């Protein structure tokens, strides 16, 4: 007896009341008896050889717990992909803010005094600080050639196309900057550890099992001796995907040595300077197009700056590579990509995960191509939009109905695009404020890339208790996006029960199976589907036992559960991911079905540029997308609005100022994220096209909104000013340099 009482309805957020009353407990709100505070002593230089550590006068050092790399019981690396990042530097440091030493003490004020009193003696070595320096190998700072990873995607054959006489060839180079995730709750954990009892870590995180895996290696302990518990988490956006493994290890090492619980919560400055950011990128495009606007070839060179250690860069590069050619049908595509090393803190996961970078480049390039052949930007897209049966750059055949022209029409209708396009062009001839309107069309794949989900083999459990309540057991974390709520909706409808009957258990590796990380727009589509299956199995179990029929009331359900638990002790089911039939992926050649499903979107931005100050303001923003079925209209719209806000920040405001490999503006005062006074109304519209592989027909949604704003905004700025700008963030300073002749003395 399934129902549709919950999916598609704006049921109240599970933890809503706790959040609006201040009752929700985040890690810094917790305290354990005898707890110490911990801090990290970090390298002030970007690259060098560590020759000494000096403990200054005036500090009662005998009261402190001090941990160095020599105190590590297991392996000194953060277990992830290449395992190249040490927990604590031994001989060399490879980026500023690299952790060298840990301190713990009960008095957090004295602890800061002590941190200042530790002087690291480091002989500096020359470093490389951006993509160009890394590619030029002025210094080799990682491996043999500074390259973490390369990919090659080939479709058709781009060679030989360029000289065809009736084609127009357009080249462009595009750059994107680092971006700080800026979750309002900084990274933090509390650890307990002892050689006898193992390690318990509570903290703010997206991926409890990533932390678990890393701690197993760090302490060389069996899996059951490590327990990781997610506390209420104040935002992640990717910034709490891999980084918590590091801070959890640090706190646990201090706890291990001191024998007391240790809390480690970064302040804002440390979080901004030391933790991961979005990968900066450089993309080069060479596009061949017929004079009537058919794409013939796209040759794309995509490079991301991974920072000092490999961390997740290869996977970020992969997603950026696959999305680089967009939702267009082009017969000949070549995408070459590299992730390179520099001596800055490792860049990491951030909503979109490489795709916003390569999509920014493509959507700017297509406006440039349209201009080169005298075609309207939307007309160029219309002539090349991918449709059912056509193939993406990786050769994936699109098997679902895709209605990009319909999304475009709707977005244009909502914004009055064509009329504004014409009116602004006319009015901009006079006046100091120029207006513009632009758009981007794009797709975003949900779930892990290629065979990723097959290797992950995620598991979700459901348990029915004797009182008829159903607990969802998964490691997928609620970080604000609504996991608890949508899982409860999915399970409730699968079982035909009330939403309130379902409880989503807090992720604790001692209690929940590994349903994989909370990343990659996979929680709803992939894990949600497993929730649906596990819930259905509960029902089948009860039915098989003859305790319920096809239809039942809540009371009958509860009685059935009670009877089953009475008879068998417990009613628990687990479901494991299996790859749907017909999905093929070739890891070697990077060909095949890159993602189970894509969300499709067209975003339109309207901007004004004040030529006196070159400040760009987004005046209106419309986001139209097809995401399968919408599970929760309020939460889904909230995801889109929040992602668009971050995209606007990345496009216009958020500028990481680097000086010798360090972030020079690591304060909220000087790293400018948009306030409520800076953002336009963000208007969100969904097309629904249920996807058979997702729960209730849903696809992934979380990362999609990060992809569109930057190119849509810069396309609008070009419309407003007549100047093509190919990098984000587009600060007023950069825009003024580009517009200089018009701006001065306006």
């Amino acid at each position, binding site marked *: 007896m399934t129902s549709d009482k919950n999916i598609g309805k704006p049921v109240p957020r599970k933890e809503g009341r706790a959040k609006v009353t201040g009752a929700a407990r985040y890690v810094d709100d917790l305290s354990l008896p005898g707890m110490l505070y911990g801090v990290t002593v970090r390298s002030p230089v970007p690259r060098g050889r560590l020759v000494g550590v000096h403990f200054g006068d005036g500090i009662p050092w005998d009261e402190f717990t001090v941990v160095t790399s020599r105190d590590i019981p297991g392996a000194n690396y953060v277990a992830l992909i290449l395992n190249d990042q040490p927990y604590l530097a031994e001989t060399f440091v490879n980026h500023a803010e690299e952790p060298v030493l840990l301190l713990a003490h009960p008095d*957090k*004020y*004295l602890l*800061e*005094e002590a941190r*200042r009193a530790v002087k690291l003696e480091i002989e500096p070595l020359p470093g490389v600080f951006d993509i160009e320096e890394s590619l030029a190998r002025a210094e080799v700072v990682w491996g043999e050639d500074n390259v973490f990873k390369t990919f090659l995607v080939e479709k058709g054959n781009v060679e030989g196309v360029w000289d065809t006489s009736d084609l127009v060839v357009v080249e462009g180079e595009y750059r994107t900057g680092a971006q700080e995730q800026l979750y309002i709750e900084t990274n933090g954990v509390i650890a307990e550890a002892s050689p006898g009892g193992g390690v318990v870590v509570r903290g703010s995180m997206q991926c409890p099992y990533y932390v678990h895996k890393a701690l197993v290696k760090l302490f060389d302990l069996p899996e059951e001796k490590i327990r990781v518990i997610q506390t209420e988490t104040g935002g992640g956006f990717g910034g709490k995907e891999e980084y918590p493994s590091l801070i959890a290890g640090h706190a646990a090492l201090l706890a291990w040595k001191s024998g007391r619980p240790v809390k480690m919560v970064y*302040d804002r*400055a440390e979080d901004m300077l030391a933790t991961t950011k979005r990968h900066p990128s450089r993309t080069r495009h060479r596009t061949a197009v017929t004079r009537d606007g058919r794409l013939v070839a796209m040759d794309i060179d995509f490079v991301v700056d991974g920072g000092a250690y490999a961390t997740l860069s290869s996977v970020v590069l992969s997603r950026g590579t696959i999305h680089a050619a967009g939702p267009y049908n082009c017969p000949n595509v070549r995408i070459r990509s590299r992730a390179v090393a520099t001596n800055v803190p490792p860049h990491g996961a951030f909503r979109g995960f490489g795709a916003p970078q390569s999509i920014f480049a493509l959507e700017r390039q297509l406006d440039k191509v349209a201009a080169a052949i005298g075609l309207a930007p939307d007309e160029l897209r219309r002539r090349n939009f991918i449709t059912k049966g056509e193939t993406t750059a990786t050769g994936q055949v699109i098997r679902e109905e895709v209605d990009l022209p319909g999304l475009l029409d709707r977005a244009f209708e909502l914004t009055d695009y064509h009329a504004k396009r014409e009116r602004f062009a006319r009015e901009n001839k006079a006046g*100091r404020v120029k207006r513009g309107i632009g758009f981007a069309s794009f797709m975003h794949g949900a779930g892990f890339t290629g065979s990723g989900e097959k290797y992950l083999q995620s598991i979700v459990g459901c348990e029915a208790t004797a009182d008829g309540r159903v607990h969802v057991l998964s490691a997928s974390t609620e970080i604000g996006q609504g996991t608890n709520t949508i899982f409860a909706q999915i399970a409730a409808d699968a079982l035909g029960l009330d939403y309130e009957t379902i409880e989503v258990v807090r992720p604790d590796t001692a209690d929940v199976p590994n349903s994989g990380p909370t990343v990659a727009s996979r929680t709803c589509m992939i894990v949600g589907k497993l929730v649906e299956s596990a819930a259905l199995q509960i029902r089948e179990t009860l039915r098989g036992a003859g305790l319920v029929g096809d239809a039942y009331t809540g009371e009958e359900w509860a009685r059935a559960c009670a009877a089953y638990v009475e008879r068998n002790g417990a009613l628990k089911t687990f479901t494991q991911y299996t790859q749907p039939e017909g999905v093929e992926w070739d890891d070697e050649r990077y060909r095949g079905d890159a993602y189970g499903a894509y969300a499709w979107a067209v975003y339109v931005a309207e901007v004004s540029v004040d*030529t*006196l*100050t*070159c*400040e760009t303001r987004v005046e209106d923003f419309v986001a139209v997308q097809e995401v399968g079925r919408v599970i929760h209209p309020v939460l889904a719209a909230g995801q889109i609005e929040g992602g668009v806000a971050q995209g606007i920040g990345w496009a216009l*405001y958020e500028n990481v*100022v680097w000086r010798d490999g360090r972030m*020079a*503006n690591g304060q909220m*005062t*000087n790293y*400018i994220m*948009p*306030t*409520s*006074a*800076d953002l336009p109304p963000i208007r969100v519209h969904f097309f629904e096209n249920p996807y058979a592989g997702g729960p209730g027909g849903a696809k992934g949604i979380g990362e999609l909104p990060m992809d569109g704003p930057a190119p849509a905004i810069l396309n609008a700025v070009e419309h407003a000013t007549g100047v093509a700008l190919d990098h984000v963030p587009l*600060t*007023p*300073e950069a825009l*003024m*340099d580009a517009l*200089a002749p018009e*701006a*001065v*003395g*306006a």
Partner: protein
Amino acid sequence: MRAYLPSYELAVPRTLDDALAMLRDEPGVWRPFAGGTDLMVLLEAGKLEHRKFFSIRHLSELRGVGDSDGRVRVGALTTYTDVRRSEPLTRHFPMLGRAARETGGIAIQNRGTVGGNIANASPAADTPPALLAYGAEVELISASGARRVPYAEFHTGYKRTVMRADELVAAVLLPRPREGARHYYRKVGTRRAQAISKVCFAALAEVEGDTLGEVRVALGSVAPVVLRCPRTEALLKGRRVDGELSGAAAEELAREITPIDDVRSTARYRSRVARNLLAEFLSGLSAEGV
């Protein structure tokens, strides 16, 4: 919180006289602490070098807006919120009202004070350019009496002022601008709230017929101090407003300011924006029939 609190002191003198006596008895040892919107930030970052402070926020005689010899007297502890709510200030000194509204957000405006904004001596502060353009005087008090200093002479260098170690800012005195004078204030800070200015521009002009009378031009964030620009003012005074004058004045202004590159902006941007804002100010005058 990176400061080691036990090495700091925050005394609370009962009265203004007690506060002034502390300054007299141990000059240079104690410093005043008002709304805390700047000092607490430094404290938390572990960058507050001075250690001994006394709180003055409760000294109500230093707070409020009143009249003094035909001028408007703004007590040093008057908050930005007080400024915004003061009818005489927002009516006669609209640039001050606007500066208050554009400082921080509501919570900052409730704590930050006009006197603190002056005494803190940040070149990026938002009310000082307006105060300079209005020809303000600063009243300083000490146990030995009071004195008044033209605000244009108050700042002597980066974070340096004419204040003696035994003095407090008591008030700011503002002469009422002439009826019909033109006020122009613009803060450029990238985002609309909670921003530190990249350039802050304030100008007041008296216009007679088609010529400019008294003109005051002041800027923030373009020099080590908030800057009055007397050479630009002199160039403008008594002249007809036209494109030629505007161009010449912009050139003079560019020579008068000394902006720098920092984490918030560039010298080039600041210089261009300063010139553009001057041009906009002047074109606004002519557009209204000067």
